[in-house]
Every structure is written in C-alpha cells, then in structure tokens.
C-alpha cells in the first residue's frame, strides 16, 4: 500500500457498483437513476444490457483504491459525505444528478388541483397559458375531455419542459439574479425550481443529487460538506456545473471544484478515476486534480487526433 500522505482522497460511490447492490436498489421504486435504467426492463435484463460494464470497471477501481490507500465509500449516503469531508482533502463524488427535465412520473397526487388554482401563482398561470396555447382550451385539458388521463399528463409535462427549455419562466426568477447573464443550464435549473415550488409538493423535485440513501437538494450537499473542508470536490455526475456553481457561490475560494456542463457515462468515468489513481501512484508528488486533468486533456486530444485521422 503506497503512502498518499500529501492528499487524503476519498471516493464516494452513490451508484451501485456490484450486481447485488444493483438488484437491491432496483426494487426501490424511488431510485431515480434506476427508473431511467430499467424503463420497463427487468433488473436482470437492465443489468446485463446496460450496467454490467459499470461494475466491471468499478471492481478495478476498488482494487486500485485499496492498493493506494484511497478510501472508497460504497452506497454512499449524505452522512458519509458529512463525516468523510472532515477527514479527507479530496472528495470524488460519483452519483446521479437528477436534472431539470420533468418526467411523467414526477407528477404526484394533487398536481391537477394545483393547476385548478392557477390564479394564486403566476408561474402556474404561465403554465396553463402554455397548455392552452399548445392544445386549445385549458379547461378542456384540465377536466380531461381532450383525451385520456395519460394523454393529459403528457401534455402538461410537455408544456412544463417547453417553458424550461425556452426560458419563458426567466421573468419570474428572483431579483438577485437580475442584471446578470448565466449559462442556460443554470437558467433551466432555476426554472425547474420555480415549477417545483409552484406545485407545492405535487411535483417531484428536480435538480437533486442522488446518493444511496435518497435524492438531496443542493443545499443539503453544501451543508453536508464540512465547513472547514478546503479541498477538492470532484463532481463526477452529469451536468455537474450546476451543483458546482452553487457550491462556488456559497463557498467561494475555499473549494476547488472539478465540474463540467455535459452528461457523463459512468463506466468510462470510473475508468478515468481509476487511471488517475494509477498515475498518482507513478507520480507520487502530483495532485489528484492535476493527474485527472492531464488524463482528461490527453483523452480529449486523442479524440481530436482520431477525428482528424479519420
């Protein structure tokens, strides 16, 4: 076991990394990432068709981490983040980011009642206007006379996503963000938050990080990271710049955040982390951030060269 005395690295795995863990999570109806993975398939089929490579790479990562003295927290929960951020310098969080896109399953009991009370909320009024614009009379939609219940839900979900995508909810954002421009990922995130608030619990909230115990709001992640933690947070999750920007907003210069604007694919992402640990073994004086950055850059260049060559 090599001595990583310069940086104490911890990897928190919010995703299942073995077949057993996958099956255990698959029976949980609330597993958001699982809902996407399973999508009508059996757990066995989803594992075989999609998830097995993730576990294969994860096994390599676990072996590598063990030999390097790097802590790996499997089935990581929020309280693990809390305790590990007290004792480590680098937190690598591998988890699912539930983004701003509204899905049919997000409509919970009482959503139609919220829409009937539109006069109270300008965001809901905007939503009903959008439904009306797209499908005719809002009343007819809300009382279901334009189609069956499934059809109705689809229309509402489509209208919500349209509002988010097109920035039509931006005028309802708080004054604090007035006068500044921001990336469209942030705008869409805030738009989804507006809808979530307007539905008062009748819409499953978006913009949350899914750890093994539950989905967690950005504030919960911020609170869980120990206030005295001044290290690196590697957000290995999809569109991590949303959570990253939030953390930077609250923590400022005290945090170094590794983030990106794109979706990620778990297996290669775990492989990248595994190889980062390997490089740290070969270059013991290097920092985690530098090792991962140089590998990511090298991969990017390799891709560009490959494109050119082809």
């Amino acid at each position, binding site marked *: 076991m090599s001595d990583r005395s310069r940086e104490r690295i911890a990897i928190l795995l919010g995703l299942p990394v073995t077949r057993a863990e996958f099956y255990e999570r698959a029976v949980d109806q609330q597993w958001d990432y699982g809902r996407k993975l399973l999508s009508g398939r059996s757990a066995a089929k989803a594992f075989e068709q999609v998830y097995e490579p993730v576990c294969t790479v994860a096994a390599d990562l676990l072996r590598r981490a063990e030999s390097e003295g790097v802590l790996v927290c499997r089935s990581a929960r929020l309280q693990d983040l809390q305790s590990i951020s007290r004792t480590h310098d680098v937190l690598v969080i591998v988890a699912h980011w539930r983004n701003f896109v509204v899905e049919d399953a997000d409509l919970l009991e009482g959503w139609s009642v919220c829409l009937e009370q539109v006069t109270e909320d300008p965001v809901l009024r905007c939503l009903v206007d959008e439904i009306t614009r797209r499908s005719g009379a809002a009343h007819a939609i809300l009382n279901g006379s334009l189609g069956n219940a499934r059809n109705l839900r689809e229309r509402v979900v489509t209208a919500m996503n349209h509002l988010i995508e097109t920035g039509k909810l931006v005028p309802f954002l*708080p004054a604090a963000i007035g006068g*500044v421009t921001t990336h469209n990922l942030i705008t869409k995130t805030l738009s989804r*938050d507006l809808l979530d*608030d307007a539905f*008062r619990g009748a819409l499953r909230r978006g913009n949350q990080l899914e750890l093994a115990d539950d989905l967690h709001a950005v504030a919960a992640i911020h609170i869980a990271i120990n206030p005295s933690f001044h290290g690196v947070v590697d957000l290995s999750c999809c569109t991590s710049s949303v959570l990253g*920007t939030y953390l930077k907003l609250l923590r400022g210069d005290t945090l170094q955040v590794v983030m*990106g604007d794109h979706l990620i*694919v778990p297996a290669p992402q775990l492989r990248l982390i595994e190889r980062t640990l390997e490089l740290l073994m070969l270059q013991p004086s290097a920092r985690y951030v530098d090792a991962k950055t140089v590998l*990511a850059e090298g991969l990017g260049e390799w891709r560009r060269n490959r494109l050119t060559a082809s």
Partner: protein
Amino acid sequence: MRDTTLVAELTNIGQELKDADAALKKAEETLDQLAKERETADRVADDLRIRASFADDLDRVLASVLQATSATASDSFIQTPSVVLSCNTADQTSVGGHNIDALPWLVKQGSARAAPVVRATGDRPTVVMPKERLGQSTELARRVVERSPETPLLPERPVSEVLGLPAERKSGSFLEHLRNRTEPLSSGDATLMARANECNCDLYVERGTADTAMIVSLGPPPRAESVFGSSRLVEKLVEAKPAARVLFAGFSREQVSALTYDAVRQTGEARHASGFLEKAIGRTKDLFRSAVDPVVSVLRLPMRPGKSAIVALSPDTVAARGRLAEMLAQRPGWRNAKVVGGSGEGSPPLFEVVFPKDGRKGTDLQSISVHVYGEKRDVVTAAELSARAKTTVSGLFKTDPVVAEAINRLAEQLERDTRVKEIEFFLRGVDSGRTVQLRRNRDTHALEEVAFDE
C-alpha cells in the same frame, strides 16, 4: 330448440367449472407463496424473540433502539415515541402483541338539512352528515357521541399559520438561495469602465463577488456585462473575436489558464461542428498529397485564435517548402499569405504560413504550421506539439513519458471496453470538464495579463 338451450347451458356450466378450477389453482399458488413468506417471517420472528427474550439487559436494548431511531432525520415537528417495550409478567417464552381497536368509521353524505347522526352499519359505525361538512367528520362524530353542543366554526387557517411556522417548507434549492439573498449577484461599479479603458485590450474580465465576473468589451461601442458562473464566463470568452487581447483582473494565473483553455477548446469544437476546420484540413491534406511527399501527416491542434489550427508533419524540408510555395500559388485566396521560418533547427514551427488578418474573407484560420520532423520523427509527436502550443493547465505534462504512457493506456482501454456509441459521448463530456479554483486579489484589483496562448 330445447336441446340447443340445454347444450348452451351445459357449455356455460362447463366454462364456469373451468374458470373455477383456474381460480382455485391460482388461489393455491397464492397460498403456497403466502405459506413460504409466513415461514420466513416465522423464522425471523423466532430469531428476534429469542434474542429479545434472553437479552441480558433489556434497558440497553431499548436504549440502543431509541438511539438508532432518534438519529434518523425527520422533517416533522411532532416527534412521538416510536418504541414500545413489551415484557412478560408470567414465566413464558413469548410476548404478546398490542391490540388496538381502531376500526375507522364510515362517513356518508346525508341530507343538507338533517343534523349529523351516528348509525351502526354492520360492525362499523357510520357518520352521516351534510356534504359541505364532510371534512369535519372527526369533530362531528365526537360531538354526536358525547352529545356536546355545537361550537361555532372558526374560519379555516393554514396549518403553518396556526403553528406559527414559516409559510413554506425549505426546499434547499438553488432558487431558494437566490430568493433569500439580500444582495444582487451583479457586481459592477461606477469605475469599472474606467479601469477597463486603462487596459489597452479588447476584452476586460474582472472577477466580482459570488462567482460573478464583469466582462467589458471595449468595442466600439464599449459594452459591459455581468456574468454568473464559470460556464457562462467560458461562453463569453468563446464569443470573443479571434486574436482578441483579453485581460483578467482579480483571478489567479491558474484560474485564467483553465478558463482560457476551456474557451480555446470550445472554440475548436464550435469550428469543428461547423465543418470549417475539417474543410481546411482536407485542403491541407490535398496540398501535400504528392509523389514527392507521400507520408506527410496532417493533424488538428486545439483551435486558438490567432494561432495554428492545423499542423502538417513532413519528413522532407525541401519538399515541404516546395509544396508550400505551390500551395500559395494555387490558392487565390491565400495570395497574401507568406511563408516564415524555415531555418530553425528542431524548434517548430520550421515553416509557418501566415495569413494577414484581413486576408481571406470568411475564415478565422490565421496560419498553418509545417513541422519537418525528418529523422526526429519519433520525437516530434502530435501530443508534444499540442503540449507546447497550448496553455499548461495542470502541474503534469503530457510530454512526460509516464503521463503519455498513462494516457495511451487509458485511451486504448476505453476504446476496447466501451461501447462505440458511448465513447464519443463520454470523450466530448470529458473534454468539457474544468477545474475552478478562484483566488481573488480584490484588494489591489491587480491586472494580470494572460493571453490565450500564454
């Protein structure tokens, strides 16, 4: 006629028997399943009973359970005891359960004029009351049973108001934080434009508070914009004109390197997406495709405003020079370009075709570098050229043999293990990653000049 009816009846009876048989089989299966589950539950119950009954210290067990349950986070405001410890007073090895007769009453709508009443329906009480009071069944049922006089109803109030709680529960969302902020994110001040004007640059970027930055484009006309988040800042840098002189204030050198590298890379991606660079690469390949120089390699470097986007590697100095001269003669749009260099030894570029800024309309391509590797082919690799050409972001160098080997191994492994459609998606994402570390020097507002090609 009668026979036909009889046959039909018999057929019906036969079908009913079949259905009954199927239902019976299904019931049997369900019973089997339930029996198995019961068996498992019994085993668990036995285990628990034995552990609990023979535990030395039941208080310790209770304390442990309470400790474990109290550690569980709860959003509710009323915390009721959730553990009941049952003990035997008789000498028995089992402990009974606690039966609570809590069969809820039925609520039925009655006449609007009639007073609420409680009736027995089977073994369940039924409360009959007017439609508009259906939501008050508990209160009305109690009053009917206790025969207490009706108290005037108070107007309904929200639960939060009754309990004196905040109007809405905390969501912990990004939006909530912004709503609660007392200060706006915008960080511009009156002297910003004056500071920008002193800089002798095209674009002035000054770090503000709360992950914001002020970007001043000195135009004409001059324009200031406040941006929030590093993603947006990179977007703005990508929008900057090629060869723009950018000045950063209040950022660390490391941070500027990361931001500009991201911008450069995204610029390249944008060009790539438009097909511009691919066409240019194709043209360059065509130029060097000759009998004299069949082994020339044409590579794409990260697009950097004002710098080479394409590099051609040639093993033959004379041939390369000849091809460059031909190229310039053949391409009317490139007449104003000139070949520079050519005498250096081992320090690329040996030749560089430089296009004047106002030369060829519609292209951002500033130059093509031609590196003649000759006998040094194994030394001058694409990775090395790129590493020299661009900003160094990390403390490690791709040219380091250990790092280069690690990159190669990783790339090969990914190509081998990852599904074809996933790898391009992943690589594009990896390519967009960045590290953000902000060290502000707000006291001095010191200007740190860092060009794109530092």
